[in-house]
């Protein structure tokens, strides 16, 4: 019974989406289903996380076929945390969309697509099977393709072409790597693979495959030099879509990297993780410089996504308990902060009718609460204490210094100042600078709509503060998650049974 919890994060969005599709003519039904589904998903995720934290790694063998023959769903602490944060973002975005999405997109299955996206994301976090991971990636990607292009405006389509193509290349590389891996090891279950890859297999092939997975997941995670699809496309769809993409999609890539590079490919850490370390440094720097060159609210944020990915994989590359805990904490932090910044940009757009910094201004005077929310999220992103970002940055920096990786620490710290720079750039231009003489006319819904959109914004800003003030709890959680990641035997034992070790 109990392990049905593992199924729910996949099943709830699926049923919600399928039901909405059957009633595809009724937007009202879809809205209601979306809200109910999102709440149910969040509750299920919280229950799952609580159970994992209390009882250890949870496993369900789908169809009751024993591992490694069937597909295992596995939730360790890291997975559970990721599912929970994904569900939370899902709820925030659904609520935000109710107020910000245009009627046309709503009537063309926007909500079911969002649910499918969440399903793919949760599936990817929970599966213990490499091919199944591919499938969830595809679910997520397909939903994102459609969400990205939904509406069919020219910039959307242009961005989508690049987004789709490059992500398909990633999928092809991923699929090929899985095929080769199956050819050599004869299994797909990750726990089983972990045992076998650390057994008799030639390390050459393991390392070669590791590099293929690095590229495949690296494209999805948007690391340097594979990130091009992201700045080309993320700013083109409606802001709610951008926000959920920014929050979740690349993070699934990072999750996959963290999973395979802690569980499967630890044969030659000296090589593989050094490669990751170097890439993480370049990712941070190129991303933040890209942001510095932009003058549009969303584009600045978009490049920052790339930059932040560098921090996430920096923890993986350093490969110490503190570093991985830093990555886990950073993940949650950055999902909250980044999603919220996009949501704020959406409120700004709803209020002012533009994203161009040059045309914005005066928001500090006119919208004090929005200013406060922006300040909190922006400073959190830049790693200013006592907000969430500081503890994230600190853990990684401390881990880097412990290991003597001074170069990456210098990059990480320098980039955090540049992040602050571009956040203040937005602040100065959109909030502080004097605004246009006449404020833009509000769109449909007016002030009431903006107030409703502020609800998730305020909640997420509050979360950034809470993660900082209550950092002890979250750091502790991250440390426990990192301990599990660094001890693959726990995972293997839970999936295959103790005697497999």
């Amino acid at each position: 019974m109990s392990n049905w919890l593992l199924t729910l994060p996949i099943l709830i969005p699926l049923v919600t989406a399928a039901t909405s599709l059957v009633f595809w003519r009724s937007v009202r039904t879809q809205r209601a289903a979306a809200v109910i589904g999102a709440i149910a998903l969040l509750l299920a995720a919280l229950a799952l996380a609580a159970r994992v934290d209390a009882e250890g790694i949870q496993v369900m063998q789908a169809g009751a076929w024993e591992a490694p023959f069937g597909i295992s769903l596995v939730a360790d602490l890291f997975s559970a945390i990721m599912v929970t944060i994904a569900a939370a973002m899902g709820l925030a975005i659904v609520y935000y969309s109710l107020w910000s999405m245009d009627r046309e997109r709503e009537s063309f299955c926007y909500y079911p697509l969002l649910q499918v996206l969440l399903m793919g994301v949760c599936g990817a976090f929970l599966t213990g099977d490499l091919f199944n991971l591919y499938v969830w990636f595809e679910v997520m990607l397909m939903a994102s393709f459609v969400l990205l292009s939904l509406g069919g405006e020219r910039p959307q389509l242009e961005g989508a072409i690049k987004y789709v193509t490059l992500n398909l290349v990633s999928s092809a590389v991923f699929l090929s790597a899985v095929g080769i891996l199956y050819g050599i090891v004869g299994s797909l279950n990750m726990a089983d693979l972990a045992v076998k890859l650390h057994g008799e297999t030639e390390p050459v092939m393991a390392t070669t495959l590791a590099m293929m997975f690095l590229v495949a997941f690296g494209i999805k995670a948007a690391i340097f030099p594979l990130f091009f699809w992201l700045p080309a496309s993320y700013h083109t769809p409606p802001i709610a879509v951008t926000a959920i993409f920014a929050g979740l999609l690349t993070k699934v890539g990072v999750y996959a990297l963290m999973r395979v590079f802690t569980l499967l490919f630890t044969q030659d850490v000296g090589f593989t993780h050094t490669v990751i370390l170097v890439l993480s440094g370049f990712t941070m720097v190129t991303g933040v410089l890209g942001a510095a060159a932009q003058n549009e609210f969303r584009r600045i944020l978009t490049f920052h996504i790339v930059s932040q990915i560098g921090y996430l994989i920096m923890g993986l590359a350093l490969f110490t308990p503190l570093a991985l805990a830093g990555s886990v904490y950073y993940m949650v932090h950055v999902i909250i902060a980044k999603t919220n910044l996009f949501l704020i940009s959406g409120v700004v757009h709803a209020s002012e009718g533009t994203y161009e910094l040059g045309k914005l201004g005066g928001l500090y005077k006119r919208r004090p609460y929005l200013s406060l929310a922006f300040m909190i999220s922006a400073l959190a992103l830049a790693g200013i204490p006592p907000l969430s970002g500081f503890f994230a940055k600190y853990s990684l920096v401390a881990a880097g210094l412990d290991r003597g990786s001074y170069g990456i620490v210098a990059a990480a710290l320098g980039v955090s100042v540049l992040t602050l720079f571009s956040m203040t750039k937005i602040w100065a231009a959109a909030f502080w600078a004097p605004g246009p003489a006449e404020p833009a006319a509000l769109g449909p819904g007016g002030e009431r709509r903006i107030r409703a959109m502020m609800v998730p914004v305020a909640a997420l800003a509050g979360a950034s503060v809470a993660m900082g003030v209550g950092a002890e709890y979250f750091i502790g959680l991250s440390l426990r998650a990192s301990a599990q990641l660094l001890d693959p035997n726990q995972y293997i034992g839970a999936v295959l049974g103790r005697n497999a070790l």
Partner: protein
Amino acid sequence: MELVLAVIVGGLYAAGIYLMMRRNIVKLIIGLVLLSHGANLLIFASGGLTRAQSPLIAKDGHVLAPGSADPLPQALILTAIVISFAVTAFMLVLVHRTHQEAATDDLDALTTTDR
């Protein structure tokens, strides 16, 4: 045959990628299709080739006869084929719509969102 298949796989990848790097948006899709053929055949080849039996259990038997082809890669490829069909179909529509909106089939003319 493995070698022959490996050459075909390599050829499919090379051709697919070469086509994707053309500026013509149509060639991009053709390249994608070739690429997915390549990936499917790669799984097929590396799963181990057997000329013998298809993985069907005989009417009078309870288990698969030894020497039958490996059913798992087949199932995987089936999934992959269907997924790549879905993607190809969507991509075709996307290209169609892009051509309608942008009135060009030159990828180099589709660079406005990056700048």
